[in-house]
């Protein structure tokens, strides 16, 4: 059987039955990286030798009856903000080019314990914020569905490498949409779990109170497998939550009958209108959920501009605090997009930040009250399909509020799921958002949708 374009779940089944060897799978991925990555620039560093060593080790372990579970022998990529022992972790920046951590990030350690094989470090926007940039030590990742298009960011390399079938999944991060946007543009699934569910120890963050470690893969089922391995309390991460971790895969029953879905059309039809293709694809998904036995009701929240302002002020102030020292001494070593956005962040005052955190409390209360009547809500991830990469400007981040930011503010689990394609073949997406710590329901709804629609059958031709 060809190992190109297997999902994690499919590969795991074959590996478990010893019909596919981890060595064969890793070799196949490395061959695809060799053939394809020159076009999409998804990798900063390929770890071919160590991946082959780990694959042989996994093969021996499995042959001797020590199968660790669904990630054993599965090739994955790490956004280059996840620290890796003895391997440079650059944040896609000249500033960090020589940074070689001594230990793995806690969540990387957990992935390795689960048997996952690290294929390499993948591209990001500089420090998960400045991109797509052409003045960094590595080029920006490109969209496998059309290499003239933007991947979305900041987990740009994760979205591109998974869509292209170079890896089967990956660990990424999301401050205002950095998992969900590239998932949407690259046509993969990506979940920003509940705040604090995955430890951030050893993950270079963009903004203290908004950053969520999360996962991306081809399907929601694969996201559930990755999340299972990475979620869990870490006493050494101050924001890690000591909350019971359910069996996410067991939650994927395919049955969503009786679930209450709120449709948040206001965000993408009134506040920040999406294009017709996106709106139509989401409406079709709503009909699909009705046919599956869900109850549907339209919901409303405060205007998206208020969520956007609140989130952006917090993000910019917190990010500036992290980078202040280097901005003073090494301003020109940052890429222009990152440093220019950060210079503007320097204009934000303490009072601005406090006002934003006060507003955050109100907005979060409003969202949680609304969610008392729903299991999940459904809205858009982005306003349109992937734009051309050269059209994304320095201040694009500020010009229009992100449809993803509200759920970083609330800390709620939110997944991006492919819900169709444009006439030109670019992916379209919707966002499914749940109650805090109810990541299982979000994954269940996303998985049920993916199972009964044809969108997961199509792959990019590169």
């Amino acid at each position, binding site marked *: 059987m060809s190992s190109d374009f297997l999902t994690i779940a499919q590969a795991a089944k074959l590996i478990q039955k010893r019909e596919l060897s981890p060595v064969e799978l890793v070799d196949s991925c490395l061959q695809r990286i060799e053939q394809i990555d020159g076009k999409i620039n998804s990798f900063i560093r390929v770890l071919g030798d160590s991946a082959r060593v780990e694959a042989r080790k996994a093969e021996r372990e499995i042959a001797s009856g020590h199968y660790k579970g669904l990630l054993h022998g599965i090739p994955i990529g790490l956004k280059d903000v996840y620290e890796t022992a003895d391997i440079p972790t650059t944040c896609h920046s000249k500033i960090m080019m020589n940074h070689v951590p001594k230990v793995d990030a806690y969540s990387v350690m957990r992935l390795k314990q689960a048997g996952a094989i690290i294929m390499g470090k993948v591209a990001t926007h500089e420090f998960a914020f400045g991109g797509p940039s052409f003045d960094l030590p590595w080029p920006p990742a490109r969209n496998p569905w059309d290499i003239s298009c933007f991947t979305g960011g900041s987990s740009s390399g994760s979205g591109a490498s998974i869509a292209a079938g170079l890896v089967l999944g990956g660990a990424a991060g999301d401050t205002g949409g950095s998992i969900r946007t590239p998932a949407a543009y690259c046509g993969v699934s990506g979940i920003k779990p509940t705040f604090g569910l995955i430890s951030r120890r050893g993950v270079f963050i963009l903004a203290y109170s908004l950053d969520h470690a999360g996962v991306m893969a081809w399907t929601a089922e694969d996201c559930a497998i990755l999340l299972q391995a990475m979620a869990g309390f870490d006493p050494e991460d101050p924001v890690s939550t000591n909350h019971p971790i359910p069996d996410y895969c067991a939650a994927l029953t395919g049955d969503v009958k009786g679930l209450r879905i709120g449709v948040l059309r206001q965000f993408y039809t009134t506040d920040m209108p999406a294009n017709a293709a996106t709106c139509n694809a989401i409406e079709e998904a709503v009909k699909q959920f009705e046919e599956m036995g869900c109850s549907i009701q339209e919901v409303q929240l405060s205007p998206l*501009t208020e969520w956007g302002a609140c989130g952006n*002020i917090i993000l910019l102030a917190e990010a500036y605090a992290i980078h202040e020292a280097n901005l003073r001494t090494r301003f020109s070593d940052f890429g222009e997009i990152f440093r*220019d956005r950060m210079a503007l962040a320097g204009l934000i005052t303490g009072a601005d930040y406090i006002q934003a955190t*006060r507003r955050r409390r109100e907005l979060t209360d409003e969202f949680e009250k609304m969610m008392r009547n729903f299991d999940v809500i459904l809205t858009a991830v982005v306003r349109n399909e992937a734009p051309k990469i050269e059209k994304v400007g320095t201040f694009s981040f*500020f*010009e229009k509020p992100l449809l993803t930011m509200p759920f970083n503010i609330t800390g709620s689990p939110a997944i991006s799921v492919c819900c169709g394609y444009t006439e030109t073949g670019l992916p379209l997406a919707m966002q499914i958002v749940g109650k805090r710590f109810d990541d299982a329901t979000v994954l269940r709804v996303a998985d049920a949708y993916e199972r009964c629609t044809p969108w997961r059958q199509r792959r990019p031709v590169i």
Partner: protein
Amino acid sequence: MKMTINDQQLKIIFEQLGLEIPDEELRNIAQGVKFIDEMRSEVRKLKSNSTEPAHTVSFPKDKQ
């Protein structure tokens, strides 16, 4: 809360922040000041008492 500042004033602010920004780049950054203005106006809208940490202070509405 509008920051009606010209390029020269912006340069001074950045100097106070310790940022050395070439003039050409400063003019580009100045294009983004309006976005910061809009966002800070947005977060300064009237809020309920629940957002004051101790839930005690409430200014008369006509003074805000």
